[in-house]
């Protein structure tokens, strides 16, 4: 178990920069998830921590030691690969024992550690099988087992669930969460799936184009996205955005004009130099409703209805051509083509300046700011 510190980590391949100075502190025992769209640099960052990629600039510290030039084996890490990367010519037992064998661990201890890991992961009966004889879920567990036996300071997971089918993915996700509780180990987990990130993480790191957009707990990211990117990335379906113009500013309050021509007062701290500029207003679909009261409102025509059972998503086209998604209760009977009018609380709004940075929100009711 160990803490981890990334200090201005940069990575470039020739002239192409893929990471532009990443800072991060990971505490002992923390479950940290790197999330972002493909190509954002999250896997590269993980591979840098593993020692599989050289660092172009900056320092990486594990347990207080700079490990920039240390080889993977001297870093005390173990990694679970997306493809599982099980050695096809070795049995499950040998796959798990390989690292220990290279480290010349004595036989009795090696055997005990392998069998122990196998027990935790319910692989006892499969130890003599070859990877080819295992199901996807079993291979996944062997890959995790191979990491566990090494008793690493830090576990690294590279999109470990992306090759599993949907049902197994949920199940394995829960297994991983349980495992973390049991082992109390430091885990760094890469995924592009924001639900995995939300459900597993103590701390989420949202990466975009080689930069850290925001670091925080799942609820912090959900309720207080610092950038438009994070706001749009976290949450499903994605947040609705529309352009509004700032018409007046008072301490703790800002008046905006919506595309429909209506004015609304929102609880944000905005400086006066923003008066007259266009900014982006965001509201999550689940915070909009047909039978709600609220300061913000839109009118439009329903284009698509998605029924999910407990709720219904309505895809609404507004008069100005913008499209808005909103969530209605499952019993809602609205049909395609119907005109609807949806409302939301001003407190549910998010406001982003032209550079995508969030304005500070004040006076938030519990519903829109619940934190753990």
């Amino acid at each position: 178990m160990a803490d981890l510190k990334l200090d201005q980590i940069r990575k470039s391949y020739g002239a192409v920069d893929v990471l532009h100075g990443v800072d991060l502190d990971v505490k002992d025992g923390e479950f940290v998830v790197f999330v972002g769209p493909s190509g954002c640099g999250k896997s590269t960052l993980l591979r840098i921590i593993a020692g599989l990629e050289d660092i172009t600039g900056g320092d990486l510290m594990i347990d207080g030691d700079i490990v920039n030039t240390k080889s993977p084996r001297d870093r005390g890490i173990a990694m679970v690969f997306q493809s599982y990367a099980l050695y096809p010519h070795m049995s499950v037992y040998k796959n798990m024992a390989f690292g220990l064998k290279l480290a010349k661990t004595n036989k009795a201890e090696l055997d005990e550690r392998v069998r122990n890991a196998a027990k935790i992961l319910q692989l006892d009966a499969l130890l003599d099988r070859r990877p080819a004889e295992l199901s996807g879920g079993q291979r996944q567990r062997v890959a995790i087992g191979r990491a566990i036996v090494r008793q690493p300071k830090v576990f690294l997971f590279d999109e470990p669930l992306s090759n599993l089918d949907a049902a197994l993915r949920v199940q394995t996700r829960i297994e991983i969460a349980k495992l973390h509780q049991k082992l109390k180990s430091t885990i760094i987990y890469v995924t592009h799936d924001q639900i995995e990130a939300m459900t597993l993480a103590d701390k989420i790191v949202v990466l975009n184009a080689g930069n850290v957009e925001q670091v925080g707990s799942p609820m912090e990211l959900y309720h207080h996205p610092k950038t438009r990117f994070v706001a749009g990335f976290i949450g499903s379906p994605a947040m609705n955005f529309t352009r509004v113009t700032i018409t007046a500013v008072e301490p703790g309050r800002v008046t905006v004009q919506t595309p429909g021509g209506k004015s609304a007062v929102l609880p944000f701290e905005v400086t006066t130099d923003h008066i007259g500029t266009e900014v982006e207003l965001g509201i999550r679909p689940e915070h909009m409703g047909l039978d709600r009261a609220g300061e913000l409102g839109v009118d439009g025509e329903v284009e698509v209805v998605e029924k999910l059972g407990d709720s219904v998503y309505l895809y609404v086209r507004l008069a100005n051509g913008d499209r808005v998604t909103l969530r209605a209760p499952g019993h809602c009977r609205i049909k395609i083509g119907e005109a609807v009018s949806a409302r939301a609380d001003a407190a549910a709004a998010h406001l982003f300046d032209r550079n995508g940075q969030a304005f500070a929100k004040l006076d938030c009711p519990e519903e829109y700011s619940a934190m753990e």
Partner: protein
Amino acid sequence: MAHSTRPMTDWRKAKLPVFAFLAPATIIYTVFMIYPLLDSIRLSFYTSVSGGDLTFVGLDNYRTILGDPGWSATFWNAFWNNMKFFAVHMLVQNPIGIALAAVLSLPQLKLRNTYRTLIFMPTMLSVVVVGFIWQLILSPVWGVGPEILDIFGLKSLFGPWLGKEGSALITLALISVWQWVGIPMMLIYAALLAIPEDLVDAAVVDGASHFEVFLHIKLPLVLPTIAMVSILTFVSNFNAFDLIYSVKGALAGPNFSTDIMGTLFYRTFFGYQLQLGSPTLGATVASLMFIIILVGVLFYLFVVQRRLSRYQL
């Protein structure tokens, strides 16, 4: 040879095209390859009397070659020489090929393609040309050989290797290795490239050094390719002729010390010096070569290949 996907269209829907597509290749192949092979085996049971008429003699030709003191000495000499020739390839060519492939497949190697292209170059040259190149270089008359050895301070080691009974065969085998090492290198290199990078990364994270990755992960995974390269080497070695013939002639001197199955076949068929050529005895030698190659191939198919499973990567 996994035919994972089976043919899909019922032939009856397209009878004529199927026949038309298959016939030309099958006919040429049958007439110029399969028929001659079978006919050679048939001829090995006959002898030609003067005038060219054939008489059935059963296994007499085989008795002659394996039983007659003169013939049998020649045959076994060629056979064992051929085994030595093959052994040198297995012990020198394949390890060098594997080593070069391993080095070439190292990550982040610069000039990889240039090295690969240049090292493979001798393989493209004709065996005859290669034979003569080395004959000249090793010729004591010219003196390039000793001069090159002198660079390494080994001048005193030089000898007329190609001319001496004790060293001629090994020298020729090494020349052949020099030429053909590109083939195992390429095939094994391709097999190494097919190993997923994740697997290597996993081993590195598990604490393996580059050499350990090669020994424990890469080598076991390319064993089937190495086995295949070995059987290809076996077949081509027992079928070799060009190099010995161009450097040493059909007599495979000195004193038959470089005689292998291919040169024996040629001499038996066409004759040499005072000995008359005999198509039927030639066919017998060819049939014996066929048996040797068949034994090798069957051993590979039923013993080696069965033990080495090819892993799905």
